[in-house]
């Protein structure tokens, strides 16, 4: 990440670091994610995202792309190709849409990143049809995307904007606990889904925590 220009820029190494942090985080938290999924789903979310981000890490190592766009598109298509389940296409689409919104340059502005995150959210919602409050990853993703956009608009430093996004995601994930699920497997449980954190929201919070970490 460089802040030498007037407008803060985010470069390819930053995105690679972010993905590295993500892969580490979901590996470390794999069992907790699976336990969350066991309670209201089918006990595979930890394994799914771990398998996915490990594959992304591998794909990036095999042929490191040169632009943020390429990093994100490769990450997204790797997730689609390796994860399966609901989270595979959803996360895959999120990263692909994010990437496809960016110019194919070695650095992008923070404002462009905010727009890209918005595209990620739109992609997830278009594909999965979930609104906020349905107890899905959208409940962490949407507030995080909003917080980032607001911080960028307010002229925050990159690390502060990303910290704000991470906090919003964590808060959004926590806030899924009292909700009754209306999308995904947890919706099969009806009222019994209340009282548990949504696993996808929890992994989304990890993704934004990784973003903050990558920002230093």
């Amino acid at each position, binding site marked *: 990440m460089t802040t030498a220009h007037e407008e803060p820029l985010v470069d390819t190494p930053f995105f690679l670091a972010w993905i590295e942090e993500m892969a580490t985080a979901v590996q470390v938290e794999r069992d907790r994610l699976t336990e969350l999924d*066991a309670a209201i789903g*089918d006990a595979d979310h930890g394994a799914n995202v771990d398998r996915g981000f490990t594959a992304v890490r591998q794909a990036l190592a095999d042929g490191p792309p040169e632009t943020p766009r390429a990093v994100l598109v490769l990450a997204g298509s790797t997730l689609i190709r*390796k994860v399966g389940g609901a989270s*595979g296409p959803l996360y895959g689409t999120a990263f692909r849409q994010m990437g496809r919104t960016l110019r194919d340059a070695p650095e992008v502005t923070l404002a462009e990143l905010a727009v890209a995150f918005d595209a990620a959210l739109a992609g997830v919602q278009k*594909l999965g049809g979930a609104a906020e409050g349905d107890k899905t990853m959208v409940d962490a993703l949407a507030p995080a995307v909003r917080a980032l956009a607001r911080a960028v608009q307010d002229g925050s430093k990159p690390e502060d904007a990303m910290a704000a996004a991470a906090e919003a995601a964590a808060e959004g994930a926590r806030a899924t606990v009292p909700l009754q699920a*209306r999308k*995904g*497997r947890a919706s*099969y449980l009806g009222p019994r889904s209340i009282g548990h954190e949504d696993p996808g929201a929890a992994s989304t919070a990890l993704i934004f925590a990784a973003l903050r970490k990558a920002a230093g």
Partner: protein
Amino acid sequence: MKKLINGVDTVVIDALRGMAAAHPSLRVDLDNKVIFRRDAPRRGKVGLVSGGGSGHEPLHGGFVGYGMLDAACPGEVFTSPVPDQVIEASKGVDGGAGVLHIVKNYTGDVLNFEMAAELCADESIEVASVLVNDDVAVRDSLYTAGRRGTGATLFVEKIAGALAETGAPLADVARIGREVNERSRSFGVALTPCTVPAAGKPTFELGDTEIELGIGIHGEPGRTRTSHRDAREIVRLAMDAIYDDLPLSGETLVLVNGMGGTPLMELYILFAEVSAYLHEKGATAVRSLVGNYVTSLDMQGFSVTVCRLTDELTRLWDAPVETPGLRWGR
């Protein structure tokens, strides 16, 4: 967790190796994780592709063969397959008459099959889909992901497979698949949870005198927990749930399905009760299957699926089938 495996990460591929070794009538593509009929693709025949998470065996790989599926895509345990698998499978079975995707209604399955279907279209493979959603335990409303696909999947695969074998066009094969789904309903009950290998422990806990009503096939808890009771009463709960949704009369096809850990003896005890229930309602099980067909790893429990038959459906059900898991007439 005690399982007969070589490691939690290799269960799917190791099982595929076993299937390849056991069934010369199949061609198992270990790289792409697709189970093919050895003679696929068949010129002019609609190719049937199904798939879903592993852990439901014999569904789907055990239903690949003459008169049923042309290919199956097993995902990781309880995880829908990835689009690549479905694309490989679709390419491999397309004999020029198009490909039918049989998809159980789970968010993951739907999304991955949809993505695959789009990419197939790019490669000029004509794809139609049948969505199976037979489980009455889930209300199909704005507040759920819709009914789950469970036992009726087997009926759809068998009957659509039989029609495809006659050389019928894709639209007809899709139509009959949807008809089977619309005429079928299921309900499941668990006595114990199951253990996903990668999770290493049971997906939920259940007391010594408790059962879960309205379970799916992924080890998830059911809609409600209640006290254990006689087979007769449990069957009544399940059948009432089905009947409330689809009044039963006339000739039916019934599957009394074990979840993987239930002895066959108990499934026959259940079937006797199902049969008596149907009789009471003026319906008959003129065709039936009793056994472990759509399972949930080592879960103890069962599901019951009823399909209201028509003459056409009965005829197609009776048509020859030759797969590892279902075979008659050949």
